[in-house]
């Protein structure tokens, strides 16, 4: 554990050094990621200038849900977002360098590069939560919402590890990682607008409802379904063990890039 913390510290310092080198791009990205959130909210404002509710959710409720999902996705991005670089590492030969390192390959891939952009989104998401939730939601139950969120982030991470493992079975050509990322963009909307089948998939199959819909609904309506939480915790544990095993097995198919 101590070794991992030392490594993590080294990776963070390395990344901060890189960011200092690419200062201009970093600053542009930081400003633009903020503007993107503003535009997302503006889009919802535009839609709500035409209607009073969407799927039974009013404007402030939807904004609150947006804040919740933004915070949880930012947490995921910070801890696991670099998994997306795996394809690049496989093609560039970087993966071989990672495998030489005396540490768990999955850990090394996760923290090979760190992005502070999610930190930016985390702050914005929290601000949105505060602004739209202030005086409207029951903050005393925020601990339960946090548990839901933790289940959501952990499950998503395991699903992304599985998605990344697919690369080793497709000659490094395809991973559903970006397809799942596309799906996540729609978690900002109340899942009740989708047909029951899709709702079930997003709650039980790929439990993305834990990233925003369930905790936000709980805080807004003071409705917590314990069975969902128990299911979510079990799912997160099983998914974590299963995905790590699958990744290790998939890694054994790595053939190198002859670089």
């Amino acid at each position, binding site marked *: 554990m101590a070794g991992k913390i030392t490594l993590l510290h080294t990776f963070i310092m390395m990344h901060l050094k890189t960011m200092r080198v*690419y200062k*201009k791009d*970093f600053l542009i*990205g930081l400003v*633009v990621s903020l503007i*993107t959130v503003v535009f997302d909210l503006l889009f919802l404002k535009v839609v709500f200038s035409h*209607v009073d509710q969407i799927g039974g959710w009013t404007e402030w409720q939807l904004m609150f849900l947006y804040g919740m999902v933004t915070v949880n996705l930012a947490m995921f991005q910070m801890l696991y977002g670099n998994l997306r670089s795996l394809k690049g590492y496989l093609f560039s030969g970087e993966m071989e360098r990672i495998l030489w390192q005396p540490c768990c390959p999955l850990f090394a891939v996760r923290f090979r590069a760190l*992005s502070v952009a999610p930190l930016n989104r985390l702050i914005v998401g929290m601000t949105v939560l505060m602004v739209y939730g202030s005086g409207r939601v029951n903050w005393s139950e925020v601990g339960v919402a946090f548990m839901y969120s933790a289940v959501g982030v952990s499950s998503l991470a395991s699903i992304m590890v599985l998605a990344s493992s697919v690369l080793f079975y497709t000659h490094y050509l395809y991973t559903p990682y970006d397809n799942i990322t*596309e799906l996540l963009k729609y978690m900002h909307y109340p899942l009740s*607008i989708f047909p029951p089948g899709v709702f079930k998939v997003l709650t039980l199959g790929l439990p993305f409802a834990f990233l925003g819909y369930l905790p936000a609904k709980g805080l807004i309506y003071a409705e917590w379904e314990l069975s969902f939480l128990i299911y979510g915790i079990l799912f997160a544990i099983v998914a974590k063990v299963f995905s790590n095993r699958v990744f290790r097995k998939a890694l054994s198919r790595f053939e190198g890039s002859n670089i």
Partner: protein
Amino acid sequence: MRAIKLKIAWLIAGVKVQYFDKGIHIDTLLRGGIQFALMYYFWKAVFSSTDLIGGRDFGTYVTYLMLSLYLQWLMGYPNIHFIGRDIKTGAIVNALIRPMDYGVQMRYKNIGIALFNALLFSPFLIFISGRIGLKGSLSFLLLGTLGTLTYIQFDIFMAYFTFWTENGWGIALLKNGILMFFSGKLFPTDLLGPHAYALIKFSPFPGMIFRPIQVALNGGDGLLGAAVTQCVWAGVLIGLSHFLFHRAQKDVMINGG
């Protein structure tokens, strides 16, 4: 004659790049499917409490989403990422020493990629054409082509900024943000309100996705004006890119040999 042959060679290179990356086809198709399905239900929920939004009914929005999806399939090549990477690694020098303008190489490669995707996903377009009629379909083809060319040139223009920033993350984020909200990718641009649209319509962005669809939905009305506007914008962006590239070239340093 030689110049034309070189351009065709780059166009074919673009087609080949796209043909051999099989994984990207599955990815593009699935991503589009997810986007369409979920936006369909989003707008369905929105329209459950109103009949018209911005003068359009639900059916029109569904057609809009389909046509937008088709155009997005032609605009997926990440130029900023690849040019930025080449600048970082120094591989850009291989492209710069070729006896052909770098911008032209990129433009024709991108056209090849867009052409391949246009053909690959053409059954989908044929399916949608039933919803917009012959006149609408023809005007969509013309304006969609001009919109795609403008997009390609805008993408290359933005990618040139990586000569200074060296990393493409921020630039790509900026480009995606602009496209998401001003081009009409996810919703008709005029939905932003008359004041915002009055400003945006004088930019090249609505002509990339929104205007081709709007004209197609109107059965081809306003085709000529939209086509001329988009040609002018494509020309302006080519000129700006050329200017930017020559400024950027002065900053290129090659270490070693």
